[in-house]
């Protein structure tokens, strides 16, 4: 591993893992190390263990895989906010409350996969996130579709209600069904690039307004931590 690192193989995707369940941590680490595609830069139990040194400079990860509930029963949204300001976060969870998943995406997560997703799915998600995209898995699509349908039916007067266009809803539904972006494009009669745009638009609708706010707050928190 260190040989590849020293030889400056920048094609490898650098991943840091945060999970408080030691066996799950080892499992994910092992999974990623199976191929030459990924390099695990850090494997820690909580986000607090990711020191400044882990996050900047040469060891900076392209993606941080983070367990949603690694610090108790509440989702670690603050950590997501902080981390997504300096890197990209892919949230995993053994099983998550839909509201927590939506909260995580709003806080800045670039995707969500369930912990018992197969290796291929996880790797594909990591590739997407590392490239700066939004890893919209079938699970996440269903959760978003259901949750956004909920909020738009006016159950609670929510100041940040997100409404999706008909196309975007169709996209979510087809992705939840298991179709790839290319197949979604065929079904909708548009190009794949258009579908990619839909996905990005969905993401920005969820993170709009929050992003600048969250980024600013996160940077301040990071600076405060550096001073300590």
């Amino acid at each position: 591993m260190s040989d590849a690192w020293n030889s400056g193989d920048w094609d490898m995707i650098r991943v840091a893992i945060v999970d408080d369940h030691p066996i799950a941590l080892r499992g994910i680490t092992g999974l990623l190390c199976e191929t030459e595609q990924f390099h695990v830069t850090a494997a820690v139990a909580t986000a607090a263990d990711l020191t400044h040194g882990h996050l900047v400079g040469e060891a900076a990860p392209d993606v941080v895989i983070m367990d949603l509930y690694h610090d108790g029963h509440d989702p670690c949204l603050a950590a997501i906010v902080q981390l997504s300001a300096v890197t990209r976060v892919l949230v995993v969870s053994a099983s998550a409350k839909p509201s927590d998943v939506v909260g995580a995406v709003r806080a800045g997560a670039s995707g969500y996969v369930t912990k018992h997703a197969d290796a291929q799915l996880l790797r594909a998600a990591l590739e997407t996130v590392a490239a700066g995209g939004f890893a919209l898995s079938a699970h996440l699509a269903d959760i978003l579709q259901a949750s956004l349908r909920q909020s738009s039916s006016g159950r609670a007067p929510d100041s940040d209600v997100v409404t999706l266009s008909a196309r975007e809803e169709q996209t979510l539904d087809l992705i939840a069904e298991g179709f790839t972006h290319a197949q979604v494009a065929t079904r909708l009669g548009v190009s794949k690039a258009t579908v990619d745009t839909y996905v990005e638009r969905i993401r920005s609708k969820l993170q709009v307004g929050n992003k600048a706010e969250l980024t600013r707050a996160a940077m301040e928190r990071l600076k405060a931590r550096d001073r300590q």
Partner: protein
Amino acid sequence: MTDAAAAVPSARSTRGQTQTEQALVHALVFFRVAGLLQISIAGYVDLDRYRSIPLVVALITAVAAQGALLCAYSLRRGHTSPSWITADVVFCAVCLTIDAGLTTGPYGRSWVDFMYPFSVITSYGVGIAYRRWTTVVAVTTILAAAYLTSATAIHHDLIWNDIPDALTYYPNTLVAWAVARQLRHTSRNLDQHLDVAVTAAADLARERERLRHARILHDRVLQTMEALAQGQWITDADLRAHIAEEAAWLRGLVQGASRGDDGDLLANMQVLVQRASHHGLRVRLNDSGYQVADVSSRQIPAESIAAVIDATREALFNVTKHAGVDTATLRLTVVDHTLVVSLLDHGRGFDPQLRRHGLGLDQSIHARVAEAGGTVEINSAPGAGTHMEIRMPLPEKISPHG
């Protein structure tokens, strides 16, 4: 994981009713003792007025003895016995008559009588013992009649002078009856409420325990098992598959338990997924839609669940056999009061026009799904994969927390 602690019917509470009966017995004893005190004092004070002192003493002793016996018996039993009270009333009536005979004296119509006040005081006991007011009235009449006849026949009183005295019994017995009835009614209610409260508390404790177990299982055991099944530490592939299957079943169960149902649908789907993976088909189960809808398996009729699971099993089998692909997506969701199960693969597909044996779903399964009120739709084309969709309407009563 069997729910062995389920439904042990708790004994019906009788504490309130027992206490009420005891209180009523105490009342009976109280009035009886008061009456006995009265006749003892009256007898002692007026002893010289009586013609035959030994007989009067004998009568008092007899009454006291009978009273003591009645009290002891009732206290021991914990409640008043109607048959004993009836016997007691008859005895009292007899004593009234004897007493009337014993107290006729040179004074003629004035009646130094100790049995009458005694019988009035103790008549409260009569009302307590009986459930029906008709019985109370009937028994009271024995006393009233005894008094009246002995007063008129033996003492030669004018009947209309003594009728008010005779009528005195009735308010006593009837009021006592009414009060006792109310007390019994209240204590019965109390006991019923106690039963409900106890059962509810037991249910709550059981649910809490189940949730606690589910959480522990989920946070620890389940993750460990899944990691072991996915990782490479266990080299025996069959063993890993077995662990994966058990983990999947456990996951379904735990997720169901934390949502308050028995995880029937989810657990079975997880098992199907694991079996498929054992045969080389990696199925991506997307149950988020179903989870978000928060519909409990318990609310779906068993035949519907069974039909859906069998149809899914067959469809998965077909994909494994014919699609020539190693991944598929199985999606569970709820849309507009309908359970939707869809299976998508990007394999060879087939031409639905050609009725090839073994492709599509078995007729019997189609029929079962239809019988349960559902529909199955299969879309496929050569080279374009296969998409199966089962739609099973949910009963009207279900309110998915959308």
